């Protein structure tokens, strides 16, 4: 279980997180919704160690993550598919997957997981030798998710997987996220597409200017009037 307590982060003079506390229980899909600049990405980046926190704590299965180097955090079973996909454009699809398994040494296991990712995303197998930069946006997103899976994470964090994708592709990606979760990977999902995210999430948090303002099950938040108004585009009548 990932447990964040009273996390404060400042970024180039701006206080991005002001005491965020949240929990990601094992086996669940947890989503963090909020407007631009609310601090969603900062939260994920602080968990991975890309951004330093001022104070607070991030406990991962009882172990403190703050102050640890990124590679140690990744090897403790956390993976992230970053915002904007960030696949390596001049590497092949297969190389992108292999680099996702950079910290692993079990060759046979890596081969097996490449097959597993190809089963989840058959499109990637067809394009195995293609350079990642030549893939479509949706395929690149699949590759970014597949690459994150290659480290065999217990917790996978996804930063805006629906960004800039056609609605049909978004549905595809979300159904695969559900499938990955059923196979035992805990998911922490950040989305601006609150509707999709809340439908899939077991637990959801609303982040506003660096604070958690609401939390509940996905269904509860979907029914919440404030959430409806602010994030689902429905007016109170």
């Amino acid at each position: 279980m990932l447990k964040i307590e009273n996390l404060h982060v400042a970024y180039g003079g701006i206080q991005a997180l002001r005491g965020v506390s949240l929990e990601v229980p094992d086996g669940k899909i947890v989503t963090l919704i909020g407007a631009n600049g609310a601090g969603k990405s900062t939260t994920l980046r602080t968990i991975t160690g890309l951004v330093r926190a001022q104070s607070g704590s991030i406990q991962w299965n009882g172990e403190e993550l703050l102050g640890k180097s990124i590679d140690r955090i990744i090897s403790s079973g956390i993976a992230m598919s970053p915002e904007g996909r960030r696949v390596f454009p001049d590497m092949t699809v297969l190389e992108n997957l292999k680099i996702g398994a950079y910290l692993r040494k079990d060759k046979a296991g890596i081969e097996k997981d490449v097959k597993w990712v190809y089963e989840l995303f058959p499109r990637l197998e067809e394009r195995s030798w293609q350079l990642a930069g030549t893939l479509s946006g949706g395929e690149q997103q699949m590759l970014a998710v597949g690459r994150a899976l290659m480290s065999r994470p217990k917790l996978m964090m996804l930063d805006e997987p629906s960004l800039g994708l056609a609605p049909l592709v978004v549905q595809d990606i979300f159904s695969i996220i559900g499938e990955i979760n059923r196979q035992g990977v805990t998911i922490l999902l950040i989305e601006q597409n609150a509707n999709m995210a809340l439908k899939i999430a077991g637990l959801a948090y609303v982040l506003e200017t660096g604070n958690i303002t609401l939390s509940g099950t996905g269904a509860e938040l979907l029914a919440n009037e404030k959430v409806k108004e602010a994030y689902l585009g429905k007016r109170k009548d």
Partner: protein
Amino acid sequence: MEFAISVLISGISVGGQYALIAIGYTMVYGILRLINFAHGDVFMVAGLLGIYLSASLPLYAALPLVLLLTVALGFCIERAAYKPLRSAPRMSVMISAIGVSYLIQNTATYITGGQPMTYPVIPFLSDTVVIAGTPTKWVTILTPFLVLALVLALQQLINHTKVGMAMRAVAKDFETAQLMGIRINSIISVTFIIGSALAAIGSMLYFTNFQAITPTAGALPGLRAFVAAVVGGIGSIPGAVVGAFIIGICENVIKSTEFTVFSDAGTFALLILILVLRPTGLFGEKVTDKV
């Protein structure tokens, strides 16, 4: 005809030596987007180390030690002068590189007294062979083959090993590379180690031909190698090698005419011409900046 062949052979040879230096420039640029101005001076230090170590040790022990110490120097320069500036603007790192360059030159002046030193004779490499009627040293013949072998090995390393894959990832995207669990500082160190090792090998070949070493002896070959890297498209290893051969041949062709003194100006004229026609160099990436 014989004269033309001998000019061509020495051009290819000196080009090969520039290539070994140019790879160091281009690899560091590829990863850090930094022009490592101290690289030519590392090359000069490798030459001085060759002189001092061979004075007290047999060559078979001195030369590997030169390689080792040059690598250590490259590694230390990166850790001390560039790593602390990792998140600083690129210009600051470049100024730091210029500072390191002067520090090395001044230290070399202090130690040698500024007098030109003579590089030791390496048996076989310095032996004379007659090609196309002109006597030349074995090093001239051997250099292109050695360079080709080293470059092929390097390409193999970059394209087909894990550390090579990590280098390509770091060169493209620091942050995402870190998310894969890659320790970028180790990969950057590996880059400096490879570049310095090649510069050390280059120094053994180059100074066998041009034996006098002064504290500024690294500046000119370094500059020409840098031009070669730009001509080839900075960031590209095959580009640096091809560029270095072009620069080496051009320089020797000009030197064989009555316009010898213009050889460096000629090199730069060529650089400008190529950059006008192909602004990213012969093999340069279309997009040079990180997205």
